[in-house]
């Protein structure tokens, strides 16, 4: 087998998102980031990696502790709206 690419749905905060990761590419170095992708009218669009998210490949994706803390911090200092 020359290349192994995993495409799978990821449940994150009540939303189904799509992930892409290259496990193996014969004879060449490759990106090891787990990236989000979308299927649009123009084709498949690979986006940024899932920053601050853990357990994507395990099937139970969740935001990392640091990310949650940062979100709470941002919320507290958002103040009056």
């Amino acid at each position, binding site marked *: 087998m020359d290349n192994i690419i995993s495409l799978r749905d990821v449940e994150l905060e009540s939303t189904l998102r799509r992930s892409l990761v290259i496990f193996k590419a014969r004879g060449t170095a490759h990106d090891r980031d787990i990236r989000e992708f979308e299927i649009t009218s123009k084709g498949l669009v690979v986006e940024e990696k899932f920053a*601050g998210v853990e357990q994507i490949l395990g099937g139970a994706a969740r935001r990392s502790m640091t*990310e949650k803390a940062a*979100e*709470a911090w941002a919320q507290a200092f958002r*103040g009056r709206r």
Partner: protein
Amino acid sequence: MTASRLSKRLGAIPIPILIAMIATLAVLDLRASFESPLLLFALNAVFVSLASFLVAYISARSYLISGSNTNLLLGSGVLAFGSASLLAGWLMAPPGGVNVNVTIHNTGSLLGSVFHAVSATMILLGVTSEVLRFRKLRLIITYLAVLVLIALLTIASLQGVIPTFFIQGEGPTSLRQGVLGTALFLFAISSIMFMKLYSESKSDLLYWYSLALAMIASGFFAIFFSRVSGSPVAWAGRCAQYVGGIYFLIAVLTTIRGARTKG
């Protein structure tokens, strides 16, 4: 009474104690001095800089998520205060000295207090704005600019470009009193504004953050009356700032604990 409410009440106890101690020492005006550059550097590094850098880090992460300018301003404020305290502690020894130490600390604190006051005012007035694009780039540029500014102030102070702030034995100059007084006022005002926000949102984080700023302002109040570096009142002022650093750490830990509880 819940554990959280009890810890908040207990946490506020050091404030009146330190203020009473500062007031007593300021009235007594003891001129004895104890200065240990290594001890000052270690205490500043652990209790002020480390805590400030942690707050700067979490503010940076928050800015990347929310794009809120108030997070960027808070992060820049603690970064300026923390890095100035670190450099000031380090430069108490040669090639620095008392004047260099006071100049770097006070100017860095003024910069930090301005960032805090602007941020607190924006939050209180509800005029926060959110950046959608180039967050990482803006963050890097802003934090770098703060660090470069502190570095330039340090170099200028070492070169004697900045007018004298403090003469050991004689006391502070009027320029230094103006700079420190402004920083004191801005930190105190910011603390009051954050406490006002806490009274509305009941966010534990805002409570501890407000106390941290109040302690830093109290520390500046003590230093304001100090005529001799390393005098008892100066050390009381430093202790107040270290307690402020501990409150910063509690604010961060409260946030992490809250995030963990929510799962």
